C-alpha cells in the first residue's frame, strides 16, 4: 500500500510538473488551442461530473451557468465599462445565483425529469439571450470583451492564460476531491445512493441537493470566465443545446464518476474536434463514434481505462484487506456458533 502510495505521489508530481512547464516545451498550438480550452471546458465538465457521478444529478444546465458567467463579465465590463474585477465578481455572482435558482426548481425531481428540467431551463436562458437585445445583445451577443490586464500583461497571452487555466483547474480538482470526503460530500454520495435512507438519518435531502447544485454552478462559473476571456466575445451559441450536450459528452468520455476524468474527457473532446474538423466536416460524427466506443468498451470512461492497471493493484490490496477483515469476522462468528 505504501509503495502504491509513493508511486502515486511520484506520478502526481510528474504530471503536475509536466503540465506546469508545458508552455516551455509544448507547441504553441497545443498550449493555446488545445490544452487551454480543454482546461476551462474541463472545469465545466468537472462541475457536471461532481453533480452526476457523486450526487446522482445529471444536469444539462452546466454550460448555461458557464455562459451566464461570461455574459455577466461582458455586460459589466463592455456595456457598463466597469473594471475587470467588478466583472469577475459580478460574473461569478450572476452565474452562482442562476444555479441556485435553477436548483430551486430542479432539485425536487430525479433522473430523467431532472435532466429534462435542467435542459428546459437551459433552453429558456438561450431563448432569452437570443432575443433580448438590451442586455444580452441578441443574436450577436457581446463583442470586444477584454481579459483583465495585470501589470501590463493581458491574461490572455498564451503561456500566461494557460498557466491561469491550469491553476484554476488544479484548484477545482483539489477542491472537489477534498469536498467529497467532508460530511457534506459523503452525504451527497449518500443522496445519490439512496435519498430516502438519508432523510431517515436526519438529513434534509433537497437542501443538500440545492447546495451541491449551487456549488457546482460556482465551479462552472470559473470555467465560464476563462472561456469568455479566451473567446473575447460571448453569444447565444455558447449556450445552445449542442454546447449543453457537449459538456455531458466530455464528462461521459472522461468517466462520470471521476474527478480526473472530466479533464481527460474535455481534452479528448477538444482534440477530436480540432483534428477531425481539419480533414472532415463531419466532426460531430467522429465525436459521436468516439462517445459510442467509450460507452460500449469502457463505461468508466477514459479515466477508467487509464486507471485500470492502478485500480487493479489498489483493488487487490483493498480486497486483501477486506478479505482479511471479513475472514476474521467469519472466524469470530463461526466461533460464536460453536459456542452455542
Amino acid at each position, binding site marked *: 500500500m505504501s509503495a502504491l502510495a509513493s508511486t502515486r505521489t511520484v506520478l502526481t508530481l510528474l504530471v503536475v510538473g509536466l503540465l506546469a512547464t508545458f508552455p516551455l516545451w509544448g507547441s504553441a498550438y497545443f498550449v493555446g488551442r488545445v490544452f487551454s480550452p480543454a482546461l476551462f471546458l474541463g472545469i465545466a465538465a468537472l462541475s457536471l461530473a461532481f453533480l452526476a457521478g457523486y450526487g446522482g444529478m445529471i444536469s444539462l444546465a452546466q454550460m448555461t451557468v458557464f455562459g451566464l458567467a461570461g455574459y455577466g463579465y461582458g455586460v459589466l465590463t463592455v456595456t457598463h465599462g466597469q473594471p475587470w474585477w467588478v466583472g469577475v465578481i459580478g460574473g461569478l455572482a450572476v452565474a452562482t445565483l442562476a444555479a441556485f435558482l435553477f436548483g430551486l426548481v430542479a432539485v425536487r425531481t430525479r433522473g430523467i425529469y431532472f435532466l429534462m428540467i435542467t435542459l428546459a431551463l437551459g433552453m429558456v436562458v438561450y431563448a432569452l439571450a437570443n432575443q433580448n437585445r438590451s442586455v444580452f445583445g441578441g443574436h450577436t451577443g457581446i463583442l470586444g470583451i477584454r481579459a483583465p490586464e495585470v501589470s501590463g500583461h493581458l491574461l490572455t497571452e498564451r503561456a500566461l492564460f494557460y498557466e491561469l487555466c491550469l491553476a484554476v483547474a488544479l484548484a477545482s480538482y483539489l477542491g472537489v476531491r477534498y469536498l467529497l470526503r467532508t460530511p457534506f460530500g459523503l*452525504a451527497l454520495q*449518500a443522496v445519490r445512493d439512496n435519498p*430516502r435512507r*438519508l432523510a431517515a438519518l436526519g438529513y434534509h*435531502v433537497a437542501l443538500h441537493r440545492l447546495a451541491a447544485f449551487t456549488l457546482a454552478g460556482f465551479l462552472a462559473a470559473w470555467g465560464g470566465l476563462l472561456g469568455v476571456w479566451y473567446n473575447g466575445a460571448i453569444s447565444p451559441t455558447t449556450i445552445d443545446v449542442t454546447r449543453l450536450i457537449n459538456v455531458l459528452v466530455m464528462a461521459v468520455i472522461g468517466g462520470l464518476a471521476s474527478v480526473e476524468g472530466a479533464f481527460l474527457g474535455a481534452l479528448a473532446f477538444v482534440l477530436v474536434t480540432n483534428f477531425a474538423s481539419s480533414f472532415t466536416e463531419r466532426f460531430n460524427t467522429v465525436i459521436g463514434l468516439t462517445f459510442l466506443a467509450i460507452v460500449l468498451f469502457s463505461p468508466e470512461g477514459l479515466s477508467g481505462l487509464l486507471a485500470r492497471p492502478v485500480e487493479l493493484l489498489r483493488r487487490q490490496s483493498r480486497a486483501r484487506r477486506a478479505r482479511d477483515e471479513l475472514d476474521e*469476522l467469519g472466524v469470530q462468528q463461526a466461533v460464536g456458533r460453536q459456542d452455542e
Partner: protein
Amino acid sequence: MVTVQATPAQAIGHALELQGVSRRFGGLRAVEDVSLSLAPGERRAIIGPNGAGKTTLFNLIAGDLRPTSGTIRFYGSDITRLPPHERIRLGIARTYQTPLVFPRLSVLENLYLAARGVRPWRMSLRRPRANDAEMVKARQLAEQVGLGHAIHALAGALAHGQQRQLELGMALASNPRLLLLDEPAAGLSPAERELLTGLLLGLDAAMTILLVEHDMDVAFRVARQVTVMHEGRVIAQGTPGEVSADEVVQQVYLGARHG
C-alpha cells in the same frame, strides 16, 4: 381488541401514540383506524400475515408516508405532519425490510453519516478527523453490531446479514428514543438471529422498540406485548400467550396459511 382513547394528560405519558390512523392508496385501505400506544421503554412486536399493513404503519410513524387521517404523537407532541428528517432528530430511528445502506461508502462512512445526521453542522465542509465525536461513535457502533473488523469494507460488499447489522448500527447512531425495526431477522441464518436477539436484548432499557417480525421466536423473546394486524386493522393485542390463544388470531393465521 383494546383501544385506549387517551386524554391529552395521559398522552404525555406515552412514548408513541397513534389515534385513529388510516392510510389509503386509492381504494386500498392499507391501514385502517389504528390506535396504538407505547409506554416509554416498552418493547412491542407487530405481527400479522403479509399485506396486513405493518410496513405501511411503520412508514407512517417514521414519516415516509403521511396518514390520510388520524394523529401520531411522540412524547405528547403531534408529529403527524413532520417530515422524516425532523422525526429522526426528535429521536425516531428505523431500519428497513430490505437493508438500505449506502453501497459505495465504507462501513465507517455509513455509520459516520448516521451519527452526523442528528447533529448540527451536517453540511460541514471540514473533513472529519479520526478523533471527532461522531467518528469515535461510528467506530464504537461498528464494534457494538459486530462489524468492528470490517470498517473499511464497502457496505455494498457485505453479506446480507452484515448489512442488517450495519443498518441496525446506523439506526442506533442517533441514540433514538424510539426504534422501529422492520423485520430485522429476515434472511438471517439461525446463528445470525441469535446474534441479533442478543443485541436487541442488550439495548438500553429506556429505549422504546416497535418491531415487525415474522420470526415468532425473535419477536416473542424481544417483545412483551404483541399487536396483531390483519387487513390494515388491529385485531388483537396482549402478551404473546394471550395473543396465541386468541380465536380471531388463530382464524386469521390458519386462514392465511391454508386459505
